[in-house]
């Protein structure tokens, strides 16, 4: 299931290491996560559900859904999609909830940090925020739970839209490279493989884990750039291994060079579904169909045209009814919808070994809610989002947001928001950034001036305060 040749990507694979899965040796490349290494070796079942013992596999591949929990070196409930594999590691399928480890020895030590600004998440918003702050000499600590910086940019092999100023026409992976280079040249302090899991308002402390080390972070300001995760939709068999988020397939294919399947079905014709489908074609994977419950393609038409000219059919007003298979997807049963979007009797089957969902993203708001930020449910923004001022400050003083966590948009808007949040903080710190800020706000307004942004603008109005 390995991809060797790719029109855009080069996969560097040097040495190999060995770890153990259920007692058997498995080969892996260093720098890949446990979940990816298992997939590369054709292992899709990661655990069995607690009650019904149904097989479970990967869903988000970016540390956000807990569908990939396994026992690693005796510790249960480890998210294997964000844990780097190590020589000799012992990985086991977990049956049910897992037992607590008998000692807490694995928690080796504790460290404290007091940055001026803590930036959570290193996607386009977080990277831009960190760069903007550090450029002015402000002390930043950037935290990323995945092994790589760049968030979802690192798997975007397509050229971006937007204006040249926001790097349109450049591929996402290139943007990530450029931003990370800038970050490094500015010597921004960052930690990858680090999960921030809790906030205590009284002590104003954030707790995070990094390789068995507890970090206590006491920041003056925080930029939450935690991004979003893929939504699930209800249908029979949606928990079967190889039913996964389109973004997870993208991680497998574009970051690690592993095929998600041979014949796949994409559910949802928004931009994510269309773009990922095209990227699968580029990786030599057959996209059997794209189905879309609505009566129109929701993503950009040009993305759809890129697929149809390769013979990929897009069925609008059609949805998935059932995923069928024993230990993994073997086929999908689709159903046409009537004009009221109710299921008709017209059903058809297609043979696929993976079903990818791109039915929308939801902001990763959990930390914000924990921090006491006032939240509101806004469907057009993707779900629960924090209220915020024009300067992107939440209802909790000195806590800012940027990017998809405040409402699902594009990477280009996320970058601008990351910059805006930082400029707002710089302003509070006494820097003269008024002009820069005004120009930026204008650029943002321009990007949001198309019909695609109408609903988003409406949603943003509902969460604006002051």
């Amino acid at each position, binding site marked *: 299931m390995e991809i060797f040749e*790719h029109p855009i990507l080069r996969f560097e694979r040097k040495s190999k290491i060995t770890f153990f899965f259920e007692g058997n040796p498995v080969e892996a490349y260093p720098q890949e996560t446990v979940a990816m290494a298992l997939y590369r070796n054709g292992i899709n079942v990661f655990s069995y559900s607690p009650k019904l013992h149904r097989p479970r596999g990967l869903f988000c591949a970016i540390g956000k859904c807990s569908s990939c929990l396994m026992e690693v070196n005796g510790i249960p409930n480890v998210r294997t999609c964000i844990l780097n594999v190590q020589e000799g590691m012992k990985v086991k399928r977990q049956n049910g909830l897992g037992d607590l480890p008998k000692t807490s020895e694995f928690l080796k030590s504790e460290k404290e940090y007091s940055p001026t600004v803590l930036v959570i998440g290193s996607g386009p918003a977080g990277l831009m925020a960190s760069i903007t702050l550090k450029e002015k000499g402000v002390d930043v600590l950037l935290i990323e739970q995945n092994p790589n910086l760049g968030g979802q940019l690192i798997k975007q092999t397509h050229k971006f839209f937007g*204006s040249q100023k926001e790097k349109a026409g450049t591929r996402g992976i290139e943007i990530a490279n450029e931003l990370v280079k800038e970050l490094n040249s500015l010597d921004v302090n960052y930690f990858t493989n680090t999960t921030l899991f809790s906030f205590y308002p009284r002590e104003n402390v954030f707790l995070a884990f990094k390789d068995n080390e507890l970090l206590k972070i006491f920041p003056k300001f925080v930029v939450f750039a935690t991004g979003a995760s893929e939504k699930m939709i209800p249908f029979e068999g949606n928990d079967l291994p190889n039913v996964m988020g389109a973004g997870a397939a993208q991680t497998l294919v574009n970051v690690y060079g592993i095929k998600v399947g041979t014949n796949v079905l994409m559910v949802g014709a928004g931009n994510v579904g269309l773009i990922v489908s095209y990227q699968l074609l580029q990786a030599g994977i057959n996209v059997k169909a794209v189905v879309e419950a609505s009566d129109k393609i929701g993503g950009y038409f040009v993305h759809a045209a*890129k697929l149809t000219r390769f013979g990929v059919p897009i069925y609008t007003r059609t949805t998935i009814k059932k995923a069928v298979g024993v230990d993994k997807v073997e086929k999908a049963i689709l159903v046409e919808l009537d004009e009221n979007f109710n299921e008709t009797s017209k059903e058809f089957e297609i043979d696929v070994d993976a079903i990818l969902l791109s039915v929308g993203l939801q902001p990763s708001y959990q930390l914000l809610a924990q921090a006491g930020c006032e939240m509101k449910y806004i469907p057009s923004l993707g779900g629960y989002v924090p209220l915020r001022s024009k300067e992107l400050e939440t209802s909790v003083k000195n806590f800012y947001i940027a990017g998809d966590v405040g409402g699902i948009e594009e990477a280009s808007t996320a970058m601008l928001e990351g910059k805006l949040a930082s400029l707002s903080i710089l302003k509070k710190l006494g820097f003269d950034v008024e002009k820069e800020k005004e120009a930026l706000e204008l650029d943002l307004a321009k990007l949001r001036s198309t019909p695609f942004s109408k609903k988003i603008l409406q949603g943003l109005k509902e969460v604006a305060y002051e």
Partner: protein
Amino acid sequence: MSNYLEKGYLEVSDIIDNFPSEDVFSLHPVAVSECVQEIPCNPCVSSCPTKAITMQDISSIPVINYEQCIGCGKCVQVCPGLALFLVFKNKDSYEITLPYEMLPLPKVLDEVYLLDRTGKRIGTGIVKRVIKVEKNTYSSLITVSFKEKSLIYEVRNIGVKNG
């Protein structure tokens, strides 16, 4: 316009009215656009050395001035929507230049399948030129030639034989 958002492709009738006349694309290749929906995008405009592509603002539809276009292909390489093509009448054959981002790339003089907007094979053509772009922000360009004039309105992809 056809119901292109239901099926994901345009019909010839959607583009024929704005298509350049044969006189115009007999002199040199000319860019044509299939970017018909308002999206926030404009690299085609900034990439054009002769300012042949204009747009009211970033979310408008690009308009190509066929008289001003010199057929350099910059916009085709840069367009993230792969929605721009070059058309050319070269003596007794017709040529289309399209962006291509798949493997394997065809070679010059290869015979390839000509595909329409739905991926259907509608003929064969000969590869005239391959511009493989190393700088990976751009798409490679393939120029194919064929005899039938009507195909210039329909061919928007190629299929590499044994590929």
